[in-house]
């Protein structure tokens, strides 16, 4: 997948930009707060109409703007071009693909894959379980519409049970249909997450090994949010916990409480790995996500590297570049011009106050 051009209108701090990108290596340079990350955010937004910075799309609209427009010109690996148009208004969002209106977001998921590397990624390792669940749902959802459907079904059944919990006395006949569904969908969700993490951990292990020069073993471990595996026992457990869940204010166990952790040589990386090791693990996770997208979707995702190069020592930086798929289109940002591999292949842009200017080779 390649982004050939991007038009932005009234987006974040950018009143209007019509950008045409040449080639597969694009570097955006400029001081902080000028719009570099805003541009990457716009590119990543095409994957699932979800920002990697905010859950509220109104933040993407320029202050005072009535409507924000994003127009993407993509070319697939097989050379097919497609045009994606997103319009954001305070009343709602509209999506058009090759000028056809797309009412269901699910139709585009998996078609415009993007992988983001950002300094914020450390939070996936260090932060709350909800961040890791969100990452996993996004990753597996992008590669499988079935996963998204089961996740939605599970969440609906969960909301229904939580609502029933608010009003005792608890009538068996009312709870049973939703608890049965909760267990049925929960089991499927758990199986898909188990399989997904097993596939990812193999990739993480291999990328971490190559990124660090091969001394330690980095893996992912799944921590299910319930110990129940047998559907009958799981249902019984749910029915026995209604009272407790009522006081707790919601269903206490299940895949909505799932977590997964990074391990380094049999140690929990959150507590025992150094900052450098942690950074290495999340980089390996991003590379694994990228490979997974490529394997499943048969399309090389676009890679965004938001100001991460400065955080790596020169040796790891070189290994990181070596590990990126050569065919992938890469957008990287930084406050300064870095030493880039095969520098002549990069298209360079200067970013200042929401304006983007492509530089010719010598102007640097």
């Amino acid at each position: 997948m390649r982004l050939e051009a991007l038009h932005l209108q009234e987006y974040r701090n950018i009143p209007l930009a019509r950008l045409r990108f040449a080639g597969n290596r694009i570097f955006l340079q400029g001081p902080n707060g000028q719009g570099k990350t805003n541009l990457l955010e716009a590119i990543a937004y095409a994957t699932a109409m979800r920002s990697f910075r905010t859950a509220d799309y109104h933040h993407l609209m320029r202050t005072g703007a009535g409507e924000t427009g994003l127009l993407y010109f993509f070319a697939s690996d097989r050379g097919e071009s497609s045009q994606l148009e997103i319009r954001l208004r305070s009343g709602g969002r509209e999506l058009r693909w090759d000028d056809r209106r797309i009412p269901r977001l699910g139709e585009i998921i998996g078609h415009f894959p993007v992988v983001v590397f950002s300094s914020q990624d450390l939070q996936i390792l260090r932060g709350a379980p909800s961040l890791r669940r969100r990452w996993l749902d996004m990753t597996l959802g992008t590669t499988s519409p079935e996963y998204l459907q089961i996740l939605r079904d599970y969440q609906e059944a969960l909301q229904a049970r939580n609502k029933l919990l608010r009003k005792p006395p608890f009538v068996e006949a009312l709870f049973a249909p939703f608890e049965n569904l909760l267990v049925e969908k929960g089991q499927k969700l758990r199986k898909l997450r188990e399989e997904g993490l097993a596939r990812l951990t193999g990739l993480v292990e291999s990328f971490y090994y190559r990124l660090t020069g091969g001394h330690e073993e980095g893996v992912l471990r799944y921590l299910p949010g319930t110990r129940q595996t047998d559907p009958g026992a799981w249902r019984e457990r749910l029915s026995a916990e209604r009272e407790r869940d009522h006081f707790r204010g919601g269903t206490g166990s299940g895949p909505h409480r799932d977590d997964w952790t990074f391990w380094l040589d049999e140690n929990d990386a959150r507590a025992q790995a150094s900052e450098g090791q942690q950074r290495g693990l999340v980089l390996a996770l991003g590379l694994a996500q990228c490979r997974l997208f490529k394997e499943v979707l048969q399309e090389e995702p676009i890679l965004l590297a938001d100001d991460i190069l400065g955080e790596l020592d020169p040796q790891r930086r070189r290994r990181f570049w070596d590990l990126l798929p050569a065919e992938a289109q890469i957008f990287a940002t930084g406050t300064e011009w870095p030493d880039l591999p095969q520098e002549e292949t990069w298209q360079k842009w200067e970013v200042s106050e929401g304006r983007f200017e492509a530089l010719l080779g010598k102007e640097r």
Partner: protein
Amino acid sequence: MSPAFDELVQRLKALPGLGIRSAERIALHLLVQKPEDVLPLQEAITKAAEKLHRCPICGNLAEGDCCSICADSNRDPHLLCVVENVPDLLAIERSSAYRGRYHVLHGKLSPLHDVGPEELNLGNFTARLEEEKIREIILAVSNDIEGEATCHYLTENLIPREVTVSRIGFGLPSGAGVVFADATTLKSALEARRPMS
């Protein structure tokens, strides 16, 4: 514009499926373009409201003691199709593919919207199954979590074991190619595949 006009628009807007623009269009159409339609429409609404009521047997719209379907002796009296709403019944009727009777629930179980079994048209359901000696039930409710939970509820609590129960299949719309179906629909269609006979 004027208080009378505004009130009319507000009344129309409160109807399902109408936004402010459609409401204004209908109001202007009736008042300016076709004022002669106002009285017949008014009469039709009043007449329908007076004459029509919920069929005490199945929940469909009825003019007499019961609805035309419950009164129709050519229908299979032992076959019952459970639907959520009257439009679902009308859709199945249009297909001419079904010759039994109906039971309209007027909703589905939805704790989020505070719809429990008491809110559904189930008061006479078990009595009906017994009196009419229903042998087979087709559950034609929506293919989502609430629809599924409703089916669970009916099967587990209200329908005797000896009655044959099935759920309508979910799959490809007819005339549509496999390539145009979304992934979820295709999955349902594959799961609901049947042997060639």
